[in-house]
């Protein structure tokens, strides 16, 4: 594509960034008017944005009130998520690809998979607590189930979408079945596999927070939950912002990976 054609969307996206920034500031301003200026709600229900922002920074050094600093919570949450997610990817992606490529294997695994598929990740929380207690393991297993489904579904569709004409090319060149799998089907599926990784990570992160609300002694979800009990809405909101921020960061990192691995396929 020529340089000129690229100019349009880029200029536009700059404009959009300005609009987005304006909207965030407007939101904060109204929030501030509502709480600090008009005092329309009691501070122990909705604290002012200034209070939340200062709490956010203080929490990076302060362990009070619930017993750990923000970084410790983030680290704990990330550790659990990434453990479950990594196992989910390691099992889910190959499983999805094999289901998409080997028909007999698909028939064999599908009944079980179709049974598990509609169960939302967080529905596994109670049974995992029964099996593994409230340590890292039970939550990691919840994340594992969440990530697994998204990875299998996307890798499967990706593999199934391999173009016939590409398989013809492989066959006329005398490629073996395994060569066709590794050199044609998997590269064909790569965009959807990566989409699966991204969807799975976002889903894992939300499932984790839910899991931590119920069964935890550390982590962002735990922090929010504790502060609800002891009435610290400023920490709750600071925690929510952190959850959103870390989630967005994780998605961004995977987008970078996607760009790297799919170079040449899109006009990036």
């Amino acid at each position: 594509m020529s340089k000129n054609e690229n100019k349009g969307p880029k200029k536009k996206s700059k404009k959009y960034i300005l609009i987005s920034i304006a909207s965030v500031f407007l939101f904060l301003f109204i929030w501030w008017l509502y709480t600090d200026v008009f005092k329309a709600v009691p501070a122990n229900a909705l604290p002012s944005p200034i209070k939340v922002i200062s709490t956010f920074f203080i929490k990076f050094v302060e362990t009070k009130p619930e017993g750990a600093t923000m970084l410790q919570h983030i680290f704990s949450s990330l550790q659990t998520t990434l453990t479950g997610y990594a196992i989910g990817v390691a099992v889910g992606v190959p499983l999805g690809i094999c289901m998409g490529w080997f028909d007999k294997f698909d028939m064999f695994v599908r009944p079980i998979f179709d049974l598990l598929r509609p169960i939302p990740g967080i529905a596994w929380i109670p049974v995992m607590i029964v099996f593994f207690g409230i340590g890292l393991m039970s939550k990691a297993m919840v994340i594992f189930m969440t990530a697994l489904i998204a990875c299998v579904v996307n890798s499967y569709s990706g593999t199934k979408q391999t173009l016939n004409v590409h398989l013809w090319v492989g066959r006329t060149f005398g490629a073996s079945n395994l060569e066709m799998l590794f050199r044609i089907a998997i590269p064909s599926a790569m965009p959807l596999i990566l989409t699966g990784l991204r969807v799975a990570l976002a889903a894992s992160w939300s499932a984790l927070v839910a899991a931590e609300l119920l069964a935890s002694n550390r982590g962002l979800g735990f922090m929010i939950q504790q502060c609800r009990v002891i009435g610290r809405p400023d920490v709750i909101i600071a925690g929510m912002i952190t959850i959103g921020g870390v989630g967005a960061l994780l998605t961004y990192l995977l987008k970078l990976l996607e760009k790297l691995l799919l170079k040449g396929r899109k006009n990036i």
Partner: protein
Amino acid sequence: MNKDVVIKCDSVSKIFYSSDKGFDVVKNIDLTVFKNEFLVLFGPGQCGKTTLLNIIAGLDMPTSGKVYVNNKEVIGPGPERGVVYQSISLFPWLTTMGNVEFGIKAAGVGKKERRKRAQYYIDLVGLQGFENTYPIKLSGGMKQRVGIARAYCIEPVVMLMDEPFGALDAQTRYLMQKELEIIWGREKRTVVFVTNNIEEALFLADRIVVLNNCPTSIRQEYVIDMPRPREYTGEKFLYLRKEITGNMDKTL
């Protein structure tokens, strides 16, 4: 003229069955293609040209009848038959070089030899300088050049081309026809070329086989002995064009 038979179709028929009904797509094709001949299968519509070509390629089996290439019965695809496809068949995740050397890589040719050979065919189709370009950055005509280089690179005896220029604009199409003739002139192969464009057929063919529509069967053959390169507006060209088009119209 050298009259060695390279491809022989022996009453080839193909019926696709859907639920209970049979659907005749190719019917009783008897066809002989000679060494280094440029044979054009000329036919309209959506009725069996690709199927016939895929049967010769060994990608599909005939319902009845047999295909022989170099006196050997075709029972599957093989490296002595290169195929250039109708639609976007390049691997989008590979560069020009990656696409062209794909076949010989599968055949286990070492890297150095592979690069050398792929480069030769990239040069042949006029794509030097685009070795490391991904297909998305190539124009339609360039993509088909890569497709041609990729098929040539395994050094097949037979080249099967399925409407390779069908998706190109008219200008590029003329250009590619001339290019293909030059390429074929330099690297002679037995070619079976499918098209529904009469100018393309007349410009390229040593022999045109006109096909009936639905199911595909042979209607008539024309030996085209005009000297090359041909003029699209030459007297004989226009005469044959009228004659064959007229003949076709009667089938529709």
